[in-house]
């Protein structure tokens, strides 16, 4: 009886679509609990921060010394200043993706975590939301640290960092939701090679290391259709400038991506596990 009452209380705090905040929180709570499972997860979590940072130092600073300046919005800026916001967007993307692809796939297919969860009142969309929020936590953990590094190295101003921060959250949610949707389609670990290759291709060609205007026109058009490009442009616009209306277009792209990803993910989890 106690239980029924408690469940009732949780149900009353409903979000739109009958989503219960309490149950989403319970999914999140599971991941917090797993943090105590040992050092391995922490190591993976912490070390993930360094990858974009190392690229910033190697390509941004190291190769940057050979480059000098590149034009941003008609204004020449230091190459490291140009690369830094791109690496920030990348760290938001990879933080969220690592959680919603690798970890979600493992729980989905091998650990059977969600089979157990779905035998409780928790619904597929609540699982998707809980996992997405957890991915966002990891993403923001990376981007806050990265922004601190950028400010310390003089690659952006404090104001720029504060403006870029919420944008990194949007990037994380958009990629996290899409990653989760994708991981419901993966057949096995071998598909991760494809996913990693795709992710790495985006990393290399989204206006990250050189302005997209330099690319051949066909190539440039293709790139403007891909998600990391919009993430990079949005974050770079806020951190380095110039700020303009086009930033709203980039943000809108990411919002659509987040909603679509979440919708597909929730449907697929339900469809595959509730058979």
């Amino acid at each position: 009886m106690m239980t029924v009452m408690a469940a009732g209380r949780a149900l009353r705090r409903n979000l739109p679509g009958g989503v219960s905040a309490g149950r989403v929180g319970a999914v999140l709570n599971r991941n917090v609990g797993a943090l105590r499972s040992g050092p391995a997860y922490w190591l993976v979590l912490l070390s993930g921060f360094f990858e974009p940072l190392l690229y910033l130092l190697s390509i941004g600073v190291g190769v940057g010394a050979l480059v000098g300046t590149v034009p941003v919005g008609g204004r020449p800026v230091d190459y490291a200043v140009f690369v830094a916001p791109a690496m920030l967007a990348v760290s938001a993307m990879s933080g969220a993706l690592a959680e919603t692809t690798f970890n979600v796939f493992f729980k989905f297919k091998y650990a059977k975590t969600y089979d157990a969860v779905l035998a409780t009142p928790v619904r597929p969309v609540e699982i998707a939301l809980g996992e997405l929020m957890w991915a966002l936590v990891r993403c923001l953990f990376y981007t806050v640290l990265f922004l601190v590094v950028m400010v310390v190295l003089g690659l952006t101003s404090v104001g720029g960092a504060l403006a870029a921060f919420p944008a990194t959250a949007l990037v994380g949610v958009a990629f996290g939701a899409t990653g989760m949707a994708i991981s419901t389609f993966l057949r096995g670990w071998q598909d991760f090679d494809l996913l990693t290759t795709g992710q790495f291709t985006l990393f290399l060609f989204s206006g990250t290391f050189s302005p997209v205007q330099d690319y051949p026109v066909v190539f440039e058009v293709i790139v403007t259709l891909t998600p990391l490009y919009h993430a990079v442009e949005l974050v770079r616009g806020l951190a380095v400038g110039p700020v303009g209306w086009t930033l709203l277009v980039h943000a809108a792209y990411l919002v659509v991506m987040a909603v679509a990803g979440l919708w597909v993910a929730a449907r697929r989890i339900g469809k595959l596990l509730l058979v």
Partner: protein
Amino acid sequence: MAEEPLIVARGLVKRFGEFTAVDGIDVSVERGEAFGFLGPNGAGKSSTMRMISCVSPPTAGELRILGMDPVRDGVAIRGRLGVCPQLGNLDTDLSVFENLTTYARYFGLSRAEARRRATELLEFVQLADRAKGKVEPLSGGMKQRLTIARALVNDPEIVLLDEPTTGLDPQARHLLWERLYQLKRQGVTLVLTTHYMDEAEQLCDRLVVMDGGRIVAEGSPRELIDRYSTPEVVELRFAGGAEVAVKLDGVGERVDALPDRVLVYARDGDAAVAEVHRRGLSPSSVLVRRSTLEDVFLHLTGRTLVD
């Protein structure tokens, strides 16, 4: 008017593509009952259990659980069920204790309540000393007990157990049975599947025998034995194999030749043995025993259960 049964199925069907796993079954389970599904591999027991746990929508037919519709009211129903699946899905990233508390949160229990329940249940399944440990190194029986504890965390009205004792040693099985009795005494409704006749006889008030997705018999263990078997069974082994079965025609009420032995169903076992010897046959071994569900099953499906 009597209370509506907790679980009612009418013409329940489950198909996977073309394949029909559950082929129109009728079942009803009353409050406080221990109800069993008995059947060989692939009979459709787990498929039925998953429909009852509201994680698998029925393809056709009617299913009501706790007076509600599992598709529409899945959330509310699952909140009052405890499920112990056939394939273990404990969370190996969490400790034994956290497995219970985390699961409790899915039902909306408060943190304090979750901890209290977890402590209580680990005591109940005799795992309190492993609370802080990891799940991975637990033995099969311990994992099974932990899964049952997890299924009880929300104080469920119905507990669904899919082959709860498969793979356990006799001692672990008896411990589990004893815990399940205790639950039953507390008024919890139990629904379980099993391959084991002794388990069904021990635990179930009522059971159905499933084969090929259909129900082939229903009743209490005693009723089934009375209906489909004789009070006694004689097991005979012959050095030369089972070909001698033809010579046993007319001994007892029915004769079943299995690859390794011949079963003679009789009201009086000793009299049947005497008749066998009178016909000049000399079996290498003779065993007279009371009839069990195993014989019922053999009769109904033409197959032995644990093969």
